């Protein structure tokens, strides 16, 4: 039997604070490859999605 898909990620205490700090300035915590992907998605993402059949 397939492993079930769990929904809802609950954060509390320090985990919630870390998440909030991250969301306030996500670029600060990004990686070079993450940034490169972001640039690609910004420039070409729409085109890619339109190509999905």
């Amino acid at each position, binding site marked *: 039997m397939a492993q079930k898909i*769990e929904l809802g990620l609950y*954060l509390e205490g320090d985990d919630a604070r870390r998440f909030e700090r991250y969301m306030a300035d*996500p*670029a600060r*915590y990004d*990686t070079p490859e993450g940034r490169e992907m972001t640039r690609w998605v910004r420039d070409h993402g729409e085109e*890619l999605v339109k190509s*999905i059949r």
Partner: protein
Amino acid sequence: MPFRNIPAAPDVRLPKIPLSDITFGHLAAHHDVASFSCTHQELTDYLTVDALKNQDAHVAVTYLAIYEGKCVGYFSLLNDSIIKKDIDPGDDKDWYNYSYYPAIKIARFATHQEYEGRDIGRAMLTAIRSIAITVSKYSGCCVLSVDAKPDAELFYERFGFHRALKTKKKSTIPMYRCNIFRG
């Protein structure tokens, strides 16, 4: 936010497959996925047994990555949320913007084992981020979430995902990354 030294991408000798050579399509009954094989058997089973059923029920949508006519990877997406709970009403409001953040969850993500190390994962993650950005134009969605298998954690970290929980609570590792453009 703790940082860890993230190793460079593994130096594998197989030629990378450029994103431009990969097409993406919704899983459909006519697709031949019987030959798909992943190192994690449950991910193979999900594609061959459950994915279409879940898609027909509108529970999760599955996309195939096709290269030279062959399914070299797949991923399944559904809506999720990140919920901050047990927040003290008197807590510092500087860090408390929203109780809920709408997200898209990467429910399944797998590369055909014969194509590992050839950038199929990068291509699929690029497609996921593109889909999520498009969705966010129609319905609130600012985060990607995933329950990473331990051997996939570094892959997600390379692309800016962060561990959600300091303390490990289950066999997978919940991770997130923001998926909105600023500036």
